[in-house]
């Protein structure tokens, strides 16, 4: 038994490829826990960043700088009464939020946080992610229909029309990136060896192809990769129903869109699914165009010295966060009323510093590095989401359809054809 557990650590495979059930389970739990923490952090950061963009303070009351606000909100949602409308279709009303959450979390089994840090690597990786996340539409349609009410139905119709339209542009951009994996680097990366001229759909294979071709796909065939990334970046905002494409839940028109009739725990499931699918599509963008887990300049700044330099980044990031928290602790009001909060923030700073120190240990930092770079890139895209929300006004529905069908779709086809032509030349 112990041998079964330790034998995996010596292999250079994902738990799925090694067929090790124990580690597969551990990885699933880690991804699940990490996602939940990320959603909580995202919730707080979104409010704070939006507030600062609008010259407000944001949440300040629950805990120092509102740090405990997400936890208070989660408690409130769990304690709220769970109302099911009398005229609702009960069974479907029940299933819909679970459908959305399950699809939003299932896609993460193929997300490569590192060459070995994925639950499993599928031959159809990217296809699997797009397919399962497209099932999320079903949950939204079910929720809107089962509520048996006008706002949810209109919201669900808008949402499904929007997601189906933007999926096409998204798919074309993805195909352009997959096409790039088949060029120049034939047989160098593990997948598809010996089969000349074929690329790969595997998420790990795509990143390895970028390593082998010594460029992120966003810079490949400049500006073709950049345009494909732009199409994907627009389509992924529309796919996740976020501002400026948040018509399905436009507050001024539809109260809350497809989840108007939901409350309490079931509403929080929709919330969880929305944020985790945002992280999922950001991970696709990072894997396909931004080099996945690769650190900056893995080919040009190669060598032990540079490896060592880049491997201390994770530790120092956490130490920096600890320093910020420490400054916050020092600046807390010196009133007895704030004593507990000050101690709590100081403790938080100490925990962050401890994590930072642990991440600087050589054994840990070698294994953790890939995850850090991947998460950092995803975090940048998540910040962009908040930024869009703070700056762009909402589109009208006909404008949204026009952008999807008349701008992004022709652009996607053009990029695909151009990539194929340039690649052959």
């Amino acid at each position, binding site marked *: 038994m112990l041998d079964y557990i330790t034998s995996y650590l010596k292999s250079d495979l994902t738990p*799925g*490829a*090694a*067929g090790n*059930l124990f580690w597969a389970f551990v990885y699933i739990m880690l991804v699940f826990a990490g996602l939940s923490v990320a959603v909580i952090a995202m919730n707080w950061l979104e409010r704070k960043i939006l507030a600062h963009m609008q010259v407000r303070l944001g949440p300040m009351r629950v805990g120092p700088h509102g740090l405990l606000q997400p936890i208070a909100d989660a408690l409130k949602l769990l304690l709220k009464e769970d109302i099911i409308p009398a005229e609702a*279709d009960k069974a*479907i009303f029940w299933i819909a939020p679970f459908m959305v959450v399950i699809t939003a979390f299932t896609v993460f089994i193929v997300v490569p946080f590192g060459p070995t840090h994925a639950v499993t690597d*599928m*031959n*159809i990786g990217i*296809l*699997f992610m*797009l*397919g*399962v996340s*497209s*099932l999320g*539409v*079903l949950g939204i*349609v*079910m929720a*809107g*229909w089962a509520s048996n009410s006008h706002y949810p*139905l209109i919201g*669900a*119709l808008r949402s*499904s*029309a929007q997601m*189906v339209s933007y999926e096409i542009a998204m798919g074309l951009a993805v195909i352009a990136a997959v096409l790039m994996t088949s060029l120049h680097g034939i047989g160098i990366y593990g*997948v*598809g060896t010996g*089969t000349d001229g*074929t690329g*790969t*759909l595997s998420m790990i294979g795509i990143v390895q192809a970028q390593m082998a071709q010594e460029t992120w796909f966003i810079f490949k065939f400049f500006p073709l990769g950049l345009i494909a990334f732009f199409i994907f970046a627009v389509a992924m905002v529309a796919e996740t129903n976020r501002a400026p494409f948040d018509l399905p839940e436009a507050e001024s028109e539809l109260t809350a869109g497809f989840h108007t009739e939901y409350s309490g725990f079931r509403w929080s499931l929709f919330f969880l699914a929305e944020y985790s699918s945002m992280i999922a599509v950001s991970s696709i963008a990072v894997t396909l165009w931004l080099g996945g887990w690769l650190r900056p300049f893995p080919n040009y700044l190669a060598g032990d010295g540079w490896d060592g330099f880049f491997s201390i980044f994770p530790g120092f990031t956490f130490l920096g966060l600890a320093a910020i928290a420490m400054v916050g602790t020092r600046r807390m009001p010196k009133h007895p009323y704030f004593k507990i909060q000050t101690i709590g923030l100081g403790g938080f700073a100490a925990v962050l510093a401890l994590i930072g120190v642990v991440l600087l240990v050589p054994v840990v930092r070698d294994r953790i590095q890939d995850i850090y770079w991947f998460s950092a890139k995803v975090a940048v895209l998540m910040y962009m989401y908040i930024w869009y929300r703070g700056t762009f006004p909402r589109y009208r529905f006909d404008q949204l359809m026009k952008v999807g069908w008349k701008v992004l779709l022709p652009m996607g086809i053009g990029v695909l054809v151009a990539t194929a032509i340039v690649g052959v030349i």
Partner: protein
Amino acid sequence: MEPVATTFFFYFLSAAAIIGGIFVILRKNPVHSALALITTLLAVAGLYLMLYAPFVAGVQIILYAGGIMVLFLFVIMLVNLERNQKQEQFNKQWLVGLMAALALGGLFVFVYVKGNVLFPAQALQLPEGENTQQVAIVLYGDYMFAFEIASLLLLVAIIGAVVMAKKRI
């Protein structure tokens, strides 16, 4: 790697597919029928995965469960269901249904009894890790011409749909 609990998953997915299929024809509410059909399609996708054909499984999920069925639901939701449910059902052709069921059942029994002779005992083992690449080589290499003709056919269908839907082009 060695597959885990193959028998269990085979029976589980088959049962899900069959029960979903039965619900499709038993439910009066078309939305419930459509959801049951989605269950069936997903279970069949799982069976494709068990046959070491991940690409077919992925396409099944994207096209059928994620694409076509969403459009189905979209249309069904816009139809006035309450009036539909009061209408008389026109599934009164039980004689034809019985004959079709008997014929299909006979076929199943025949395959079950004679299966060892009809099919090879050992399925063709293709490497799972290259499934997509194999499909691509066959589709865009050996059967390029047929593939292009099929895509032309789809184009004709799209133009036909646009012509029918638009009164004035």
